[in-house]
């Protein structure tokens, strides 16, 4: 429920007009002119959704209860054994911790940077459209290609960053080879691709804030910063919750970039939950256990989304 209205807010079409139209039509329909047979329109999509989304999901849940090895075809029922195994495995906990760390830093940096740039664009009176379009490019480049671009920047010795630093006589860190720097590089990569999305959504949101409210605050003597933090940000809080939730869920399943940049290495320094699931399923062929890990990921992501919507959404009512 909350999420739909949030998704609606993100659409910077005048949603009020839409609601008005919907209300009008519902009223008119309530007078009840004719019965419509609409289900045939849903049928093809429904068939696809059932056979290619819901059935495979059910199958994955089913698989998660078995000890299945793809190469040998051996399959034994283990009940919740896979889940118990994973929860008792240090490797699971450390990759979960890494994932949370990477997701939190990436989404945090993206939000702060995105807000700063969006506010800058909002204050700027010219060239906004062109700048916005240019800075948007990284977001729609094929993620694998984007990861390659960054790999060439961060690559040891011949990468752009290293050769510039070496040219200045600075000895550069091993960006992709050192565990800590590899994690930072992965966060930078996600930031590079998704800050533009933050900027776009936040910029659009800032533009929907009621001008008369801003002017009233300015007359009361509020400065630019106060207007931003006291008036504008509270006004777009639902949008902020929406964009943070979406980014969090996406970052959790972040795969392409890590696969290309570090493939989880060095060692397991950038092995996130998604990377671990991939390795379990497609390298070790333990599809039962991998499915269980997928289900656990889903539960965690849903819980985090619920917390985010609950906590940040609720503080709106308090304010």
């Amino acid at each position, binding site marked *: *429920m909350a*999420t*739909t209205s949030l*998704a609606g807010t*993100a*659409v910077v*079409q005048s949603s009020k007009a839409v609601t008005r*139209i919907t209300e*009008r039509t519902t009223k*008119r*329909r309530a007078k009840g*002119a004719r019965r*419509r*047979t*609409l289900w045939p329109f*849903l049928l*093809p*999509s429904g068939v*696809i959704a059932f056979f290619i*989304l819901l059935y495979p*999901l059910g*199958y*994955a849940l089913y*698989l998660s209860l078995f000890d299945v090895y*793809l190469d040998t075809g051996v399959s034994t029922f283990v009940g919740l054994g896979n889940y118990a195994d994973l929860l008792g495995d240090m490797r699971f906990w450390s990759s979960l911790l890494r994932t949370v760390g990477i997701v939190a830093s990436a989404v945090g940096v993206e939000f702060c940077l995105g807000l700063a*740039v969006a506010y800058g664009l909002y204050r*700027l009176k010219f*060239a906004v459209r062109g*700048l916005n379009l*240019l*800075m*948007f*490019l990284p977001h*729609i480049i*094929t*993620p*694998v290609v984007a990861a*390659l*671009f960054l790999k*060439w920047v961060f690559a040891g010795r011949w990468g752009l960053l290293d*050769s510039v630093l*070496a*040219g200045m006589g600075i000895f550069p860190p091993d960006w992709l080879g050192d565990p800590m720097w590899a994690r930072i590089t992965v966060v930078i990569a996600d930031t*590079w691709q998704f800050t533009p999305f933050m900027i*776009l*959504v936040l910029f*659009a949101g800032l533009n929907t804030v009621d001008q008369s409210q801003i002017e009233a605050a300015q007359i009361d003597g509020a400065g630019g910063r106060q207007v931003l933090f006291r008036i504008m940000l509270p006004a777009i809080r639902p949008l902020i919750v929406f*964009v943070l939730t*979406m980014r969090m*869920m996406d970052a959790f399943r972040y*795969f392409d970039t890590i*696969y290309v940049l570090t493939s989880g290495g060095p060692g397991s320094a950038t092995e996130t939950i998604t990377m671990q*699931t991939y390795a379990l*399923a497609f390298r070790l062929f333990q599809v039962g256990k*991998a*499915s269980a890990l*997928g*289900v656990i990921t*889903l539960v965690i*992501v849903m819980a985090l989304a619920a917390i985010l919507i609950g906590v940040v959404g609720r503080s709106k009512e308090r304010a």
Partner: protein
Amino acid sequence: MKKTRRLSASQLLLFLALCLFTAITLTPVAWAFLTSIKQPIDAFAIPPKLVFEPTLEFHHMVWFEKGFGRFFLNSAIISVSTVLISVSIGTMAAYGLSRMRGKAAKGILLGLLSLRMFPHMLLAIPFFILAKLLNLIDTYPAMVLALVAINQPFTIWLMHSFFVDVPAEVDEAAAIDGASEWQTFFKVVLPIVRPGLWVTALFSLLLAYNEFLFALVLTGPNTKPLPVAIAEYGGEDLNYWSLSAAAAIAIMIPIVVFMMLLQKHLVRGLALGAVK
């Protein structure tokens, strides 16, 4: 007078700051482009050379010698089929949902939204096993069906947002004139949302073109699309660096075209694109 001048000074500062941000953002792309037109000896120079003799040799190789044509064709077949199926059935479903009374439609839309929470990895496993059982690994249908399925929530939401903008009075007028449900849909409502249809098709194309995980799992030597091909691209060859840069730039070209076509609709598409 004084005030306007101060204002424009701060505007100029703001403009420069944003230009700097944009420049940093675009540096990796520019660097890749420069690498793609450098001879290997220039590409490995330290400090990086900004003045060099450009060559289109590697771009030529990518397009005409290294078999990238095949991967382009695979990507095109997969993305275009996905868009055709996904948009046509998604549009119908979106229309149906936008015209339904009661709570069912809302429930279905919410259900679609929550489907996006599912980690793709969780779907990749059953997709892979089922495709293997049905002998569909390394065929176009397996990849297209998987992409249609994950595109559905997005396509339906985006088209739904366009259909909701068309007042139901339009349908009712058509019904009074004696049009059937299907005639109303095809002849009256669909033409009104045609711009929306294009936007949805382009976004859907972008999602299919960029997809990596499912392609990695479901395609093989015969159907491999561009993202997988370039991720596997490598070798000890010294030319590799410039060559893969040229390939990466080639993959990006259609994206830049999409973006120019889409720029007016970016916000609506992406906000709902998050529904993917």
